[in-house]
């Protein structure tokens, strides 16, 4: 299934840019920022970025850990943490004993991710885990702002406060009444979380966040 067609689209209507690898070149140029909580006196806004169209790659199942080790990629320890893979400009998120999500460290530079993916696809060994279709199964939002933990506390039952949940922590829990994985990435240098959740609920998630943010 390596054939690529033009015209891939995200649930919120973003077209995947017309690049051969389906990824645009920079995070900012075309990205839509949705303000869910406007700037208030002394407190910055809370914004949501829809990153769904950016490349990501998941492998899970028996052999996944061994395969990553065989590529000299250090595994995040323990489960539910993110470990940067500096040599490959990748971030590796560990969701289970044999469940991984690979993200590009810089969204605008997808080549290293594509390289890892093609290494994995072309590897002939018997056990290397399975493609977990994370780029199709999940929508990918990033939500950030100085008060993002307080804001998410309206809908998330886990304490996300910056001093209790360090950078690179992963929380598999519920947001907007649905299963959601939160990864603290501080991607915009602001306190912020990547959210991974049911792609068919992307519209719902966005409208929920907006409604929770409405004063």
């Amino acid at each position, binding site marked *: *299934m390596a054939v*690529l067609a033009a015209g891939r*689209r995200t649930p919120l209507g973003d077209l995947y840019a017309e690049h051969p690898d389906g990824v645009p070149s920079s995070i900012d140029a075309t990205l839509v920022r949705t303000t869910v909580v406007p700037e208030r006196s002394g407190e910055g806004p809370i914004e949501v970025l829809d990153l769904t169209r950016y490349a990501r790659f998941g492998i899970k199942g028996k052999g996944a850990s061994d395969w990553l080790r065989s590529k000299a990629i250090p595994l995040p320890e323990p489960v539910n943490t993110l470990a940067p893979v500096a040599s490959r400009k990748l971030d590796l998120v560990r969701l289970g004993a044999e469940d991984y999500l690979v993200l590009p460290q810089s969204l605008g530079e997808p080549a290293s991710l594509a390289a890892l993916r093609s290494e994995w696809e072309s590897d002939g060994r018997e056990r290397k885990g*399975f493609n977990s279709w994370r*780029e199709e199964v999940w929508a990918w939002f990033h939500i950030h702002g100085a008060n993002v933990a307080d804001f998410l506390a309206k809908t998330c039952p886990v304490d996300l406060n910056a001093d209790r949940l360090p950078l690179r922590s992963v929380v598999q829990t519920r947001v907007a009444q649905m299963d959601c994985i939160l990864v603290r990435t501080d991607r915009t240098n602001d306190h912020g979380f990547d959210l991974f959740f049911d792609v*068919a609920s992307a519209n719902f998630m966005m409208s929920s966040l907006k409604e929770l943010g409405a004063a």
Partner: protein
Amino acid sequence: MIPRLPLPYGTRIDRGQVLTFTFEGRTFRGLSGDTLASALVASGQWLISRSFKYHRARSVMTMAGQDANTLVQVAGEPNVLADVHPLREGLEATAQNVNGSLEKDRDALLDRLGRFMPVGFYYRTFFGPGKNSWLRLWEPLIRKKAGLGRVDTSAPRVRYEKQNLFYDVLVVGGGPAGISAAIEAADTGARVLLVDENPELGGSLTYARFDDEPEATAHLLGDLRQQIKAHPGIDVFTNAVANGWYADNWIPIITANRLYKVRAKEVILCTGSLDQPIPFRNNDLPGIVLGSAVQRLMRHYAVKPGRRAVVFAGNRDGYRVALDLVEAGVEVAAIVDPRTTQQHGAFAAQLETKGVRIILNAGIAEAAGAAGNKHLKAARITRSDADTSEWIDCDLLSVSCAYTPTYQLALQAGAKLSYDDGTAQFTLTNVPAHLTLAGSVAGNFSLPSVLAAGRKAGGNAAQTLGLASREIEVPEDEERSLSSLELPLVGHPKGRDFVDFDEDLQVKDIENAVRTGYDELELVKRFSTVGMGPSQGRHSALATARIVARATKRKVDDIGVTTSRPPFGPEKLGLLAGIQQSRYRYTSVHHRHVEAGAKMTPVGAWWRPLYYGDQKPPDTLIIDEVNLVRQRVGILDVSTLGKIELRGPDAGLLLDRFCSMNYAKQPVGRVRYCLTLNEMGTVIDDGVASRVAEDHYYVTATTGGVDRIYADMCWQNVQWGLDVDIHNVTAGFAAFNLTGPLARQVLEAAGGLDVSSEGLPFLGGRIGSVANCPVRIMRIGYSGELSFELHTPQSYGEALWDALMEAGKPLGLRPYGLEASRILRLEKGHIIIGQDTDAVSTADELGMAWALAMKKPFFIGKRSTELLRRLPARRRLVGFDLPSSEQDRPDEACLILEQGEAVGHITSTCLSPTLGKWIGLAFVPADLAEQGRTMLIKTRKGAELRARIVPPHFFDPENKRQEI
């Protein structure tokens, strides 16, 4: 306006800001910082409400929002507590539960009819005179009489929010103990939340009198508040009620329109205690007020509560109130002390020098009201050492006698309530782990011991959290035994000695409940309704326990209080609802359906097209869609189908165990039906498995069933320990069913993999691309026509849909919806799980024995199927048909009759556009399932229709059309 007391009285009011408001249509003036009740009382308007049953005049009692006497209607909002509701400019308040006006309540007559309404009378009345008297006569009447307030159905929409909060330590109650506990815990580094229901911290320090002069108390309060304010580790919520205790220290905190769900590692309850009233005849007259309420009126609002007071002092605080009154310029006519000897010599000496008369051995037998009993006029004092009694004129009677700990949250958490005869108080024991009590709720009464107990509780909580804390000594508490007094509870012969003010229950009512046979407290409560009113027994529990103890000759400790459950106080439904968000899921081509004019319908969380267009009646549109598929080609969005990837060497084995057919033997490139049973042999789901590779199956499940199937598969896999990875990719793939005689031509026009009958035969599955979109394609369908189910990663969904629509345009391709799909499948006799099946339908009953590979060593449901096959068959799902008629029609859920008895029901039926007659499926008893037999259908109109039992494959029984 009556002048207020001078400074420093009135800590909460701003004398410079006068507010105008109305009560019962009359205009009043109050001050900013007043509550509605303090402004009314300050203006001389004591009468605030009428009691629930007898419509007696009532006024402020606690000034703390703890009684039902101050419930009023404020604009559209009923049941507002006037003693804590902040006064606002232009506020409009009215009384509740009055017939006519508050001043002239026609129902006040009921007070004279009390003997016709004994306790529990409603359990014995209202049965007659006629058969339906309750519904027609009594219920509407009682509803009108019993309701409090009026709901404004046109009230504007209000936003209510919820939020989770996480703290190391939650301190409930911001009095001296709570403040000390918060500071001590935060000093060790703990993150602390301190909540208090009042507008400001301080608790009793803001109104009560202690051993030191009031100036010293004010200084201490200022110092404590400053420490809290300056402490970075303490968050403070005021005007916030901790409204219950739920498992593992989960406390709902309500403030305005927000519900905080606070999870705290340690909870410290400094909830204080509740000043208790005493029973005597007419103890509910306006002007009879608890001592703490007198102090609140003066200190907080600078309200002079009366001109001439009698002070009942069963404890030390009674003397302190008397001193406060004297200092505020209120004449204290007498202190009535029931004890035989003077216990508070220093106070007594101070008061006597000011000319106050102290009567020991004394009690209050009754009170008398001025005209209409709207305010206290005099109290009759009796002495246990004399036969005479004496009426003393007064317009204020302050009552200080006993306290009960505010035990509700502690009891909800599992603490036990005991009664200590020595101190005449309830005490809390067996406090569970991670919960601590401090202050008067824990029996600390003297200020030094309250402060130290608070600090000790804060330190202990910190220690449990692993933080370094210091040792704290709590000094001996000499006040504990002087705080409460147990009075003999003898009812007045003429009654009106209220135990429960909310429900108008008197001493004799509780006694009569016991006498009627309800001698257990929980029964007394349910029979008499004691403690069931808005104040939930805050002032009646102790008295009730004592009355029941005496009446049943048991100890108060054995009686206790009724089970305490959340919520502590009333909470608005809006707070529980919060922001309502119902999940919805869209397929990747949702917008295409909307653009094409689809009528969308929810299917679980998903939204799916029901039919397309609005230019014709829906029935016609649906028939057009059926005809389109039968004659040309249509496309159905089936993206909502469950989709599961099974990968690994044991994938076939897992499927063999989980579903009913043979999958391990299924060739790669083939698609096979999946029927899933539970262990009872009930059919629970169906779908297909496409074998993509030796170790890879792509399995579909029903839209509604996939979550359960996926969870069960994963669970079984953990137990079976198979080498297979199970992955739910339902939303990750868009899926479209292209079906109709011209379906192949559409795919050929779109371009892509070989879809010829040789390249992709019926029940074949391939991987490739169509219109440059990656697809998994299967020759399967529900309609009985030539069908291709195309699955593509959802990001390609729109591209594939558009390409197919474009390619199919010359062939007349249009999308069709769920309604047409349901007809198409019924014409083929395919079942829908959950519509044509129920909780006990077996594959045999459904005529699907063909789908059971009984030779397999095991599959879930096999054992029960074998067992059931040895029993007589119970029922069958049969097909039926009947001619179309203008007069009547069968419907789903219509009964099947046999000799007048209901023996079965219709599960699916439709007027088949293709066959021109009614067709359907129905459950009938196995012995009546014979083909060709006639069965009777009872229609919704009540008529009977005769239908013929036929094989369920109504259309193209040889399946020639789908296999071309």
